[in-house]
């Protein structure tokens, strides 16, 4: 690349890749650095959820809706630009089906869906019978269900690597196995360069897209940022015949777990097929720091709930379990935008288990803010200096 980049994105997961893509689409010269390989952290351990169904009315739902609209166009653009093979991301707008397994859950689910409909979410109440027509292997115990036609799936590593391929095609650079060590400031105190294990990269701006490691990078850059890891584990079955599970199917208890502060193990059932025929069964949420020990009681809890939802899975082999760390902020909202404490530093992090889905909207919002365009949605709720984050940072 001739001259210095305008922006260095730190982190080559799906959020960093999407930000780099959006910034390069806006004409910025971009370098992406990652201390490992692209998509080898949280993104590589993701399920590929692009969901509106699990979000309650509020700023995250708005971001999810914007993101859901952007993803198909973004991928279509990549196909045009870099070709169908390099842009393949297994996008599948398969829809989601949330099933309640008791009368109380059914009522709660219906009430929750009504609040989402008020925000423009397509959420269709369906009968248990209809649910079992749509998902023939669903348990007969289903007591109520809501269909979300806009829920979709992506293969996270394909999505991230396709976005990065576009960045490279536009003259940007992706430097893998290059660790970001901090930032250099100019006399005014603004970002002048990113310090890395391979030397300084002079630049006008740095985007912190380090996922669960965002707090550590922010600290290295000289600002506090309370982003913590939450461990999530997913089970993978042996390949099953096509059509065994057709949509993303959740137990209605999923909704409660996402925003919870309970440090103990939580599991909520998400069952879905992949293009390769395997069925992914998620997922757990545990606050165990960066401890990646696989715990059998966690696997067991996930397995139990999945077998309750799809009894046919009981005799199906589980081949693999994989885990990753999802970044979350104290108020469970992403952090997107400039850091007023350090001019030139930007954040795009804290997406917890929803980064794949929220990446497209996050990237657009960040690019809008960087370029001074009209923001695609109200950025205020995602500010790094919002009270919930500052309180934690000073506590």
């Amino acid at each position, binding site marked *: 690349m001739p001259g210095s980049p305008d922006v260095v994105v730190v982190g080559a997961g799906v959020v960093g890749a999407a930000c780099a893509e959006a910034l390069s689409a806006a004409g910025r010269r971009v370098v992406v650095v990652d201390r490992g390989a*692209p998509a*080898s952290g949280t993104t590589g351990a993701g399920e590929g959820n692009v969901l509106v169904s699990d979000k309650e009315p509020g700023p995250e739902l708005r971001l999810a809706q914007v993101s859901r609209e952007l993803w198909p166009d973004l991928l279509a653009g990549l196909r045009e630009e870099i070709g169908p*093979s390099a842009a393949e991301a297994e996008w599948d707008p398969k829809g989601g089906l949330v099933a309640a397994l008791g009368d109380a859950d059914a009522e709660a689910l219906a009430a929750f869906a009504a609040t989402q409909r008020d925000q423009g979410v397509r959420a269709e109440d369906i009968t248990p019978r209809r649910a079992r027509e749509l998902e023939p292997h669903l348990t007969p115990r289903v007591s109520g269900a809501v269909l979300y036609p806009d829920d979709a799936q992506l293969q996270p590593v*394909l999505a991230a*690597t396709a976005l990065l391929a576009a960045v490279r095609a536009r003259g940007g650079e992706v430097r893998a196995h290059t660790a970001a060590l901090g930032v250099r400031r100019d006399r005014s105190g603004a970002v002048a360069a990113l310090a890395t294990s391979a030397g300084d990269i002079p630049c006008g701006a740095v985007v912190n897209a380090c996922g669960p490691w965002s707090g550590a990078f922010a600290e290295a850059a000289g600002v506090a940022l309370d982003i913590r890891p939450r461990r999530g584990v997913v089970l993978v079955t042996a390949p099953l015949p096509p059509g065994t599970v057709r949509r993303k199917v959740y137990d209605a208890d999923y909704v409660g777990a996402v925003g919870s502060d309970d440090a103990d193990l939580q599991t909520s059932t998400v069952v879905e097929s992949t293009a390769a025929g395997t069925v992914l069964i998620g997922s757990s949420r545990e606050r165990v720091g960066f401890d990646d020990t*696989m715990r059998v009681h966690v696997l067991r809890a996930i397995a139990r709930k999945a077998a309750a939802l799809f009894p046919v899975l009981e005799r*199906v*082999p589980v081949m693999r379990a994989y885990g990753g760390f999802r970044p979350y902020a104290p108020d469970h909202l992403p952090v997107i935008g400039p850091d007023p404490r350090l001019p030139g530093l930007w954040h795009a992090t804290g997406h917890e288990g929803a980064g794949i889905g929220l990446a497209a909207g996050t990237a657009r919002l960040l690019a809008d803010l960087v370029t001074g365009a009209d923001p695609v949605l109200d950025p205020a709720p995602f500010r790094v200096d919002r009270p919930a984050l500052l309180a934690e940072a000073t506590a």
Partner: protein
Amino acid sequence: MNRIAVIGAGPAGLAAARSAAAAGADVCVIDAEPAPGGQYLRRDALAGARAHDPATALPPGVEHRPDTVVWAIEPVPGGHRLHLRTGPADDPGRTGATVDTRALVLATGAHDRALPFPGWDLPGVFTAGAAQALAKAQRLAVGERVLLAGTGPFLLPVARSLLDAGARITAVLEAGEPVTGWLRDPAGVLAGSGKLGELAGHLAALARHRVPYRPRTTVVAAHGRDAVEAATTVRLDRDWNPVPGTERRVEADAVCVGFGFTPQTELAVAAGCAMAEGFVRVDAAQATSVPGVFAAGELTGIGGAALSAAEGEVAGAAAARLVGRDPRPPLAALRRVRRGRRFAAALAAAHPVRPGWTTWLAEDTLVCRCEEVGAGELRAAARERAASAARPLKLVTRAGLGPCQGRVCGRNVAELLGDPRLADGFARRPIAAPVRLGELAAGNTADGTNTCAGPR
């Protein structure tokens, strides 16, 4: 908790159990096979109830859990918890149990490494280990006209087993230098180990059956519609590139291949043991980097049954000491370990897998048999997506994501893409053996601490 758990009942596991028991420790041996012995001492499974076999016998008082897989291991205060399923292989109705132990000996062995070549996924192509297991345990010859190809001295006992089972072997093809080189160095690393006699015996058996032994030659293609009918053999140069013009088409109904061994490290990796070049790192007492976990046998390096047994003896004594026993220092075993390791190092140096094998592949030759990923596709995806770590590589190519979880393809993918370190990422399998979802959901006994039965 003071009961020593030994996983695997091959030469290493048996020796570990014996030496720990001799020191007065409580021992439980967990093994996937119905009878002790492992791959090396595999017994005739059709002989019914048989006479006492001293080679595979466990001392009285040692508990043996046959037909049992350890599918997960996790740390618990003061030791490790093993999660077991006992019963018919892959059956959803197996019984669950857990074993908590302060001293664990991993002796999980190794399996044959196969290199891909066009047609290697045709029925009738076997690993050398498959042919040997079927011959020894099931009295079954895999073919009438068998080609045996690969590298290293361990091909010879396989040939012997095949001949014993009544197979006709067309040729034994050694891709590298001939093992007869070992015989010319009687004062070398094999001195006094008994291996020279073994080798000479195997070679004599081949000669008796008029089986040619061809060095610097291998099979580079298997042909047939639904199963192997013929194979192409070729001479290899020093780097294992085929020598043009030396191709020969050979009729064969079975091709058996063995290019060294891959250790079965999933439990060691799951326990967090430090690894070095694909093997578990151990100290002089066979202790791994994880307190309370010992490793013995092919897990620590490929050196054959005698070295495995010696390491097992050392590991068993060390485990016994850890649970408060006072074993006699296993000085003789320690000497045998030192000598065995010299042999193992010489073996690794004499019979490495050379990089030229990657030229045997056509673009459409499957590298990952499970997910049916061809070599061309694999290289293109890795390049196009700039995948430089195992997890993203697997997810963009699908290699290693199928039922075998990269056990067959991991090292081959890594070498094909020019970064052998990638293989480490394929070796991470926290679910160490497949379990049905219902087995996972069901758990064990109510309190989850059903330890090995028997006196504590």
